[in-house]
């Protein structure tokens, strides 16, 4: 299975986003996802990044990028300014988990969150073998990982429930980016969720 830009979650995210929508991508890196969404879905996009090198790369890519620290909230964005707020493979690097989820749904109608599942069977096996997991979706050594929160699909869904967030849709992928439908907390390496506020 081939995926856009080698990122299977990008295809899922793109499919959920309507043409012309306003999209905010938190931790947008060099703006690859936004550029893809602009080119293929005709969205209006903005990104938030903290790293200088990514700011430069995103501007070079012709992407609107705002330098900022997700840990400090999204003060410069107005309530409900976006149709979608994307946090792709970044939630596990943010310390203020509840804070950023609330901010996403303050500034956006819908949050799209993807993250690596720490309960993926290969990760579990790795820990049983006595080593921290390193995989396609967790491509870091324990000593250089930007990840500060370690959680599973079940953990995340518990938190959403506790925060009163509604899971509108969920897609789970294995390490090759193929969809997983059974035993997702065990067989899924990467999860993508669509969330809204409880109504």
């Amino acid at each position, binding site marked *: 299975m081939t995926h856009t830009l080698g990122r299977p979650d990008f295809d899922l995210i793109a499919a959920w986003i309507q043409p012309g929508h306003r999209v905010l991508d938190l931790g947008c890196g060099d703006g690859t996802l936004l550029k893809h969404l602009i080119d293929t879905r005709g969205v*209006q996009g903005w990104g938030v990044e903290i790293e*200088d090198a990514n*700011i*430069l790369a995103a501007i070079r890519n012709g992407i609107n990028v705002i330098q*900022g620290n997700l840990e400090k909230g999204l003060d*410069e964005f107005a309530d409900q300014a976006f149709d979608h707020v994307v946090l792709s493979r970044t939630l596990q690097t943010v310390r203020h988990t509840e804070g950023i989820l609330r901010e996403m749904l303050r500034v956006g109608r819908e949050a799209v969150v993807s993250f690596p599942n720490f309960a993926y069977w290969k990760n579990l096996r790795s820990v049983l073998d006595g080593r921290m997991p390193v995989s396609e979706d967790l491509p870091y050594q324990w000593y250089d990982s930007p990840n500060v929160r370690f959680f599973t699909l079940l953990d995340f869904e518990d938190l959403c429930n506790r925060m009163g967030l509604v899971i509108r849709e969920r897609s789970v992928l294995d390490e090759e980016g193929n969809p997983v439908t059974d035993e997702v907390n065990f067989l899924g390496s990467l999860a993508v969720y669509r969330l809204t506020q409880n109504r």
Partner: protein
Amino acid sequence: MPGQSVGVVESQRAHFDQALHLRSGGILPAYDLVYETYGTLNAAKSNAILVCHALSGHHHIAGHYADQPDNIGWWDNIVGPGRPLDTDRYFIVGLNNLGGCHGSTGPSSLNPATGKPWGAAFPIVAVNDWVHAQARLADRLGIDSWAAVMGGSLGGMQALRWSITFPERVRNAIVIAAAPKLSAQNIAFNDVARQAILTDPDFHGGDYYAYDTRPVRGLRLARMLGHITYLSDDQMGEKFGRELRNSAFSFGFDVEFEIESYLRYQGDKFAGYFDANTYLLMTKALDYFDPSREDDGNLNATMARTQANFLIASFTTDWRFTPARSKEIVAALLANGRNVSYAEIDLNFGHDSFLMEDAHYHGVVDAFLRNIKL
């Protein structure tokens, strides 16, 4: 330094006979603007960039004069072939604003009505007045719309004002180390600077030209104070610390600490060439700047009138116009769904960082400019 200097440049003068009605109610019946251009205006006249100057700047942005090889433009490091303001691609325009003291009509120019220097009779000019005067220069040069208008500090405020006053004439705006309006502290510093000038016995109510003197002491103090606010505490500490010119204290009021020596030198140098009335006017233009005033203070409503794509940049150590002030502009643009990028650049030179050469800072400006479609 990557890229090259533009080399030898010449300044030009444009005379305008059409009266300019100013925000203060004053009228300039006719005026001159001195300006410089670098690069070549393309056939479509779509590659022009206006660079606006800050408080003490002028039209000589880049290069040097044939007979003054050491007189290098104030933002030379960013202009030239292969530099962010690439003269192989762009036609760069810089001018001296009205009220200035570098050749454009200002308080030290002769008032045609009296045959004497304008002095205190020169009307107060606002940022928006400058923008209107700059628009007339654009008309004269055949430039309908700027590829970009840019500037740092007060120059950034002009770029912002351009995007509001003439939205259809600004395709991109680069606003660096600026603010949507001054804070009480900003105005307070400006007023102390003005008081230094106004209370100098040589000021003579602004008509010192007639007395063949200049309020040098006041202007010197004003510059010393201003200079402190342009630098960061860290940078001052690193550069001067508590270093003494001599090894021991002299227990007197002469220059002892290196920072005193530096500030006095900067003050003397500035007071030697700058006009005190121009300094007063520039600080008032800063104080009055507040485009949102037209919308009862609602900056979002003001920025709704813009059409440009924006690059907003601030510097982490700038305490005169902090990153938070730039973010106010960013927030107002985002609220209107404008195309905007914001870079918070980690440089140690305080407010003056905008004039420094830094690979990341210049890289950001370069990347933004290279994406402009001509």
